[in-house]
Structure formats: structure tokens, C-alpha cells
């Protein structure tokens, strides 16, 4: 019976000391330990979620980068194509212009030549007229003196005249 009869003394000491232990451990051990465990778990969870977020952001950034690169490529292609076209345009335009200019220059040169030619021809005509008059005058002067000599003279004059 001793075995299953609770002893008064032990009951008393157990009740007293267990209450004290419960109080002390609750206040000075479990509270800080549980708080620290919870804090640590929270910080780990936070860190993990932050890492996840960062990874996601990174992926987003990468995707954006790729998009930007693709856009840049597109832009470059467009610019190149434009430049090529523009170049082509400019070259052809300048060619045209040069042609036109050349044509113009040629035309004006022709005109000038024609003009100069006309002037020259007119001068030649004048000169011919003058010469003819001179010759006629000299022929007439010689004829007046001797026929044979006059003829000879005319011929020498004619030889002298340099028809250019």
C-alpha cells in the first residue's frame, strides 16, 4: 500500500517546487527561448521570401533586358536600312544633280560656243569684206596702171593673204 499512497511531505514539496520551477522557467527560459526561435524562423522565412522575390525580379530584369536588346537590334536594323536607303537616295540624287549640272554646263558651253562662233563668223565676214575691199582697192589701183602687172600683183597679194 505504501507504493500507491501519496506521501504528504513529498506532495507538499513537489507542489511547492514544481510551481516555482514552472514560474521561473516560464518567465526566464521558455519566454526568451520561444521568442528567439520564432524570431529566427521569421527571419529565415523573410530571407527566403526576399531571395525568392530577388530571383523573380532578376528574371524580370533579364526578360526586360532581352526585350531591350531585341528592340535595340530592331532599331539598329531599321537605322541601317534607313541609312542605306538614304545613302542610295543621296547618291542617286547627287548623280542626277551632277548629270543635270553637267547637262547644264554642256548646254551653256554649247551656247557660248555657238555665240563665239557666230561672233567669229561675223568677224570673219567683216574681215573678209574688209579684205575684199582692200583687194579690190589694190586690184583697182593696179588695173589702172598695167593689166599684166596688175594681175601679177593680185596674185602675190592673194598669196600673202593667209586665210585662216
Amino acid at each position, binding site marked *: 500500500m*505504501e507504493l500507491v499512497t501519496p*506521501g504528504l511531505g513529498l506532495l507538499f514539496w513537489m507542489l511547492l517546487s514544481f510551481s516555482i520551477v514552472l514560474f521561473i522557467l516560464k518567465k526566464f527560459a521558455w519566454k526568451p527561448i*520561444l521568442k528567439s526561435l520564432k524570431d529566427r524562423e521569421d527571419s529565415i522565412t523573410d530571407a527566403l521570401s526576399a531571395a525568392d522575390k530577388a530571383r523573380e525580379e532578376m528574371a524580370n530584369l533579364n526578360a526586360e533586358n532581352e526585350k531591350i536588346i531585341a528592340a535595340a537590334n530592331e532599331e539598329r536594323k531599321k537605322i541601317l536600312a534607313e541609312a542605306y536607303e538614304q545613302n542610295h537616295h543621296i547618291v542617286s540624287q547627287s548623280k542626277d544633280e551632277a548629270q543635270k549640272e553637267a547637262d547644264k554646263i554642256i548646254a551653256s558651253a554649247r551656247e557660248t560656243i555657238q555665240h563665239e562662233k557666230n561672233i567669229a563668223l561675223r568677224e570673219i565676214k567683216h574681215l573678209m569684206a574688209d579684205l575684199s575691199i582692200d583687194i579690190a582697192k589694190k586690184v583697182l589701183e593696179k588695173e589702172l596702171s598695167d593689166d599684166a602687172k596688175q594681175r601679177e600683183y593680185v596674185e602675190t597679194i592673194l598669196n600673202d593673204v593667209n586665210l585662216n
Partner: protein
Amino acid sequence: MPFKIYSVKMTSKKTIFILALLFVTSFSFRALANAEEHNSTTTEVEEEHTANNEDAEHAEQEEEFNPGTMIIEHVIDAHDWHIMTIGHKHISIPLPIILYSEHSGFHVFMSSALAHGHSHNGFKLHDKGEYKGKIIEEKENGEIYKPYDFSITKNVLSLFVSISLLLWIFLSISKKYKNNPNIAPKGMQSLLEPLIIFIRDDVAKASIGEKKYMKYLPFLLTIFFFIFINNLLGLIPIFPGGANLTGNIAVTMVLALFTFAITTFSGNKNYWVHMVNTPGVPWWLKFPIPLMPIVEIMGVFIKPFVLMVRLFANITAGHIVGLGFISLIFIFGEINMGLGYGVSIVSIAFKVFLMVLELLVAFIQAYVFTLLSALYFGMATEESH
């Protein structure tokens, strides 16, 4: 009963675990019952023996090995801490005796004053009958009184030792947590942290629920580690271990009383309504004879009672069976010296096996006490669906 709901919620692994546990428990009960029976018969025989011719038999009786008495003396509380006996010399640590007598007030003296049947101020250790091993006050006229005994007995000293250990361990690791938060645990901290987290997540949170578990967690952690440490200390055969503290009914009674008080005081409206008007039960079980309410109200007391008995019986049974194996050596040794040595090999092998089993039981019983307390708190605070 609401308990069913919980057991269904539990994983199958846990259910098997608990079933195995109940199995072990029932065995321990049987062992205890046998041991007790054995003990009571042997002591009776011995009493008759000593009563008839006390003086003549005295010398011989000391020589004779009585396993029943030896085992029970080891398992129950004592006023001094017996370490060993060499020849006829008892080596024990004297402990303070604190008595309150209705006749002569308070008395404080050391237990060594009562050794070998000596009496001190009229107080002596009774050696027979109902009060065997208890302190009695004998008046000059031969009247016997039983004083209130608040002595620092073997178990009380063991309690103080285990409590100091508990406080030292947890206050020191708590300091570590406070000083270096957010770093990986080290040493003792890393040994105990998994247990703390286990009690928090798998016992408290699982049984009481996310919302209210924090209120009960300090108590659950305290009883778990208190029972666990005392179970382990009880397995150490030398001082300051070896006292059968968690196998003492007074200790388990206080622990169960705490669970009972907390359960009762935290019972919400739903808990009491369920008790008086149990849902899901045919009306004729509640009226005119309130059968279910009676069962439920009995359950309120039976639950902590079972907690008390389970822990007590498991730990005491472990001690009794272990001591039984050791006793076998001496029983056979009395028949023949060689036989004693021969049996010792088998006995020690069994004792080692039992020790390993007891290590498991030490944890399991601490776990079960904590888990069931948590389940009762869970029931008391459960909201209506």
C-alpha cells in the same frame, strides 16, 4: 467523446505508436500487480517471522536475501539515502527530517538520529504494521501518534537535484538564445532545440491549435522536460540518480493535478455544454437518466487520474523489473555461489536490454503525459464547429 476526433486527425504512424504504448502500459500494469502481490505476501510472512522470535532471528534475518522487500525498499521513498551495505555496515546519506506534531510542534533533526531503530525526542521509525518505514511519535505512556512529515526525503532531495539541473540547463541555454539570437544553436542548445520544437509543433500546435497553443506551451515544455529528466535520473543507479521520483504516486499526482486544474480553468462554454449535453448521442442516453453527462463528468476526473497512474506504473514497473533481474543473481547465489555467477551473465544481459528499453520508455512517458495534457487542453478550448 471528443477524443475520437483527435485520434482520427492524427496520422496513422502516431496511432500505431499510441497503440504500442498502451500495449506496453498494460504489460507494465500486470508486472506491477504481480510484484505488489509478491511483496505483500513476503512482508506478511516476514512480519510473522519477526513477531514470533524477534531477537533470535535478528542476526539470521540480515543475512537472508528477500527480493520483495529489497525491491520495494528501492522503489519507495526513504528518510535517508542508502548507498550501499558492506558487510553489516550501512553507508547512507543522512537527510533532514522536518516534523510537525500536534503535541510538540515543529522538530528538525537529521535522519541519522533514527538509524538502527534509535529514537529521538520520542520520534522513531516504525518497523512493522501499517506505519512501517514511517515516523511515529511515541508518548511516554506508550500512545502512538503520527506527526505530519515534511522531511527532505530521498525523493525530495532527488526532486531538488533534478529541479536544479532543469533550471541550470534551461536558464543557461535561454541566456545563449538571448545573447546570440539568429545564430545556429551550439552544444546543449542544439541537443534540446529539436525537442523544444517537437513539443511546440507536434504536440502543442497539433493538439491545441494555432491560435491558443502559446498559452499552454510553457507548461507543456516544463512537464515534458521535468518528467524526461527525472525518468533519466531514475535510471542512473548511483547517487544523485536512482530515486524513483516519477514512479512515485505523489509526484505524478501533482503533475496530473496541474493538468486537471489547467484543463478545468480553461474550459470554455463549448466544453461544458458538450459535457452536459453531449452532441451526437441519442436523447434517451441523457434523459431521464443523464447517463452520458455522468460518464463525461467522470471522465473529467478519470483523465488526470489515468495520467497519474500511467506514469507512476510505467516507471515503477521498470524499476521493479530491473531490480528483479538483479535479485535473480542473489537468489541463485544463495543456493550456490557458482550458479549466482552463471545467472549474473543472463541477468546483466537482460538488465542491459531493459535499461535500453527504459531509456525509450523515459522519453515515451514524458511525451505521452505531455501529449495527453495538450489534448485535454485542446478539448477544453475547442470552439464549436
